[in-house]
């Protein structure tokens, strides 16, 4: 059954990468074969949890030995404006005895304890490698528990060894499609209802965008999943429009919701002035297409005019100082192009971007923006980056926390653009914040000091 689900995900027609593949290639699946001793990256369980855990009022229970939750909980920057339950780490912490005798009973007991203590609207139960190996039937236990406890108890069947983080994201999407979306009706609906899919509200950055939607009069029916509420996700099928933020991660949700419920979707970005404006425009246009009054468009354009003017005015002082500064972008997915456009708007020069986790469509976009000559690295090894930085090919690297020390040890400025950062970069305010962060880091006087050799050398 898990095998079928994995194959289904591999066939995902909404996935640009898949569309570029032959039938045979597609069968092999998205995940590249990993090279033992030279691999990096998260597993499918990691991916599933990243996608679902931001649903903040649900309990997220990891069925596995301590490594899966004990080594990983409390490590991401998704923020919630309501319940903080998602920050609580739940696990069955399997012991040797559990491994020998099976842990289905323990799992049920754990679910029950959680429901009694915390009374969440739902419990997501994550399968992991060890119980999958010993044959614990998580789906059956969840069904039993749901019946007994009268709550949605949702199995997330994405044990680490089935594949990559990316696959896990998609399996999480399937979980929502199969078990959550469409299971409740909203109390009211409006012509302005949208879902935001694939936005995780890192550093609370969606709160830089939401006031603009409020001003437009757009209502967010559900967030999937940053700052999300379980019962709102359950009503997502009644939205008029879906916005998909990260192009690859949860594409299956958007596409299947279109298929099942006829909800159109578009892919958008909150990063950079013009992309942000395009996103607001798209929301307004699609809502109007689906029957919202047309003055929404006028209102939206007015907001865009005002916000853009304000943003450019605020960016102006930085532009001069940052002109010609060279950025190495080492991230993936939508950020590989959305950040490019955002940064170039502020006068920075992008020397290249990694596209390891980017889709074919992402890459096309970059080509359209930057031309064929532009560096797009499929595989950029740490040692290569280190060399580039030591050779002063870039003034600053933008990446995630794990790769920061490649830059810092080379004494090159670095900025976190991934999940551990504490500054929001979304929306018009966010791009100003991003540019300010870059300016602050580039302007810091430590660089000259740390680059000088000890005076006795």
């Amino acid at each position, binding site marked *: 059954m898990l095998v079928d689900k994995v194959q289904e995900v591999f066939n995902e027609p909404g996935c640009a990468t898949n569309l570029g593949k032959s039938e045979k290639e597609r069968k092999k699946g998205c995940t590249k074969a990993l090279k033992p001793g030279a*691999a990096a990256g998260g*597993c499918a369980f990691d991916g599933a949890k990243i996608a679902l855990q931001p649903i903040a009022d649900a309990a997220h229970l990891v069925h596995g030995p301590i*490594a899966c939750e004990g080594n990983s909980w409390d490590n991401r920057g998704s923020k919630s404006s309501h319940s903080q339950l998602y920050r609580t*780490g739940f696990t069955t912490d399997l012991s040797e005895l559990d491994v020998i005798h099976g842990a289905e009973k323990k799992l049920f007991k754990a679910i029950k304890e959680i429901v009694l203590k915390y009374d969440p609207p739902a419990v997501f139960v994550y399968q992991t*490698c060890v119980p999958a190996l010993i044959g614990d039937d998580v789906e059956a236990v969840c069904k039993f528990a749901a019946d007994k406890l009268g709550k949605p108890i949702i199995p997330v069947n994405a044990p*680490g060894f089935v594949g990559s983080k990316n696959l896990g994201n998609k399996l999480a999407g399937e979980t929502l499609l199969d078990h959550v979306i469409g299971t409740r009706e909203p109390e009211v609906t409006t012509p302005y209802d949208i879902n935001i899919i694939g936005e995780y509200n890192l550093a609370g950055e969606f709160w830089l965008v939401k006031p603009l939607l409020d001003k437009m009069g757009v209502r967010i029916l559900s967030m999937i999943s940053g700052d999300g509420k379980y019962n709102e996700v359950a009503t997502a099928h009644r939205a008029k429009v879906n916005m998909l933020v990260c192009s690859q991660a949860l594409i299956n949700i958007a596409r299947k919701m279109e298929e099942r419920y006829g909800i159109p979707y578009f892919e958008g970005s909150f990063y950079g002035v013009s992309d942000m404006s395009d996103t607001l425009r798209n929301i307004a246009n699609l809502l109007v297409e689906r029957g919202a009054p047309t003055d929404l468009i006028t209102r939206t354009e007015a907001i865009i005019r005002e916000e853009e003017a304000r943003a450019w005015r605020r960016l102006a002082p930085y532009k001069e100082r940052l002109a010609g500064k060279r950025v190495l972008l080492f991230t993936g997915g939508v950020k590989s192009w959305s950040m490019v456009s955002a940064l170039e708007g502020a006068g920075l020069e992008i020397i290249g971007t990694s596209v390891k986790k980017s889709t074919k469509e992402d890459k096309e976009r970059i080509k359209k923006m930057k031309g064929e000559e532009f560096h797009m690295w499929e595989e950029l090894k740490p040692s290569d980056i*280190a060399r580039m930085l030591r050779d002063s090919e870039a003034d600053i690297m933008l990446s995630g926390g794990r790769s920061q020390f490649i830059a810092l040890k080379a004494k090159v400025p670095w900025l976190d653009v991934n999940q551990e950062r504490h500054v929001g970069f979304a929306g018009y305010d966010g791009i100003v914040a991003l540019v300010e962060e870059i300016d602050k880091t580039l302007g810091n006087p430590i660089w000259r000091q740390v680059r000088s050799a000890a005076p006795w050398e």
Partner: protein
Amino acid sequence: MFKAHQSNKAATINPLKMSQPLGGALALLGIDNCLPCFHGSQGCTAFGLVLMVRHFREAIPLQTTAMDQVQTILGGYDNLEAAVLTMYERNKPEVIGVCTTGLTETKGEDMRGALATFRKRHPEVSDNCHLVFVNTPDFTGGLEDGFANTVTAIIDGMVTPSEMTVSNRVNVLAGSHLTPGDVEEIRDLIEGFGLTAVILPDLSTSLGGRQPDDFKATTLGGVTAKEIQGMGASVLTLALGEHMRKPAEALERKTGVPFLLFDRLVGLEAADRFIKALADVSGQPVPARVRRQREHLVDGMLDGHFYFSRKRVAVALEPDLLAAYCGFLQDMGCEVTAAVAPTQSPALEKIKAWSLLVGDHEDFETLSHGSDLVISNSHARQSVDRLGTPLVRAGFPTFDRLGAGHRVVVGYRGTRDLLFELGNIFLANDHEHASHDWKHDPKMEDHHGGPHAAA
């Protein structure tokens, strides 16, 4: 054997425990030019890696055998072999250490057999690179156990008996409760007596913040393979932490080097025992600056004890670090309200606390109510937010503050700094009563002269 009371829940909530292989990796990171690897899914490595990067704020070399579902069912040797070959070819480390995970242990992985097979099939690798294979299943023990098992495996696999003795050399088995900063301080103290120390593992020279000239995918700094091999020539082994007892015994069995075990180095009398041992083994007088440090600690205890008397402190840490903190708090007149460990250990037997428990952060939060201070890893930030209690971050992981690796609490100086740190928190919170504090309140009775005060 002593067993602490164990929380009996099906759901572990806000885990305090981390996995064995993580401890194994930590031990391997204290060896120079080494590449540690987890034998499991790539996710096992990714989680461990991120956690260590966040704590040490350093690049962490850690590889994976990248097991997938099919390979797991068929048996993991092929991936293990492939991984070791790749790591060797790409990075030419002097030491490769492989720790199993829950995934590979579920099927059962004979690491001794695997090592023998690999040696036979790839002498070109095993002749040029030390291989350490360790069983560290996720589903038994925790970080401290994985660390101890790996140090034992390193000793078993690498140390050779020695004919000769280097009279001023001592071995140090530095447990996982010691930060790189602690290890630095310990070496400093040892060298003050004219001794040299072989420290296994030596995190101070690998994870203290090296500035490499070039990118390196293996560890940079730490004890060298050659030094480890020569540990049999030392006159004495100083085993630091109860969980270093087994490695110390293994080392003694193998080389005949006797050992002294120091369950903690925090506190006046604990530091006294250590310094006395150094004076004895070296035959040297105690250096003037160490004497001054002792005076300063005594002075700090006299100046600071006011703020410690009967303060209620809750501590949740790995066993040996837990025992060290609880012991020091007791020395200073605090009441340890809750002592929570993630795993069982003989170190827990010495702890005196209102509640002593093997449990998780949820248990800890419940037991911490009404405490004046909480000492634990960064995960406790969630509970102290709810409790409104100050938190001193200690142990692993400390990911939301700078300098976790440089925290020093050992020796006279480390103890004095800890004393001032905690004392100042108590002092700041004791300070400045306002008129509304003094309402005639019958509940005050619980505060002054309640059952615990009279206990």
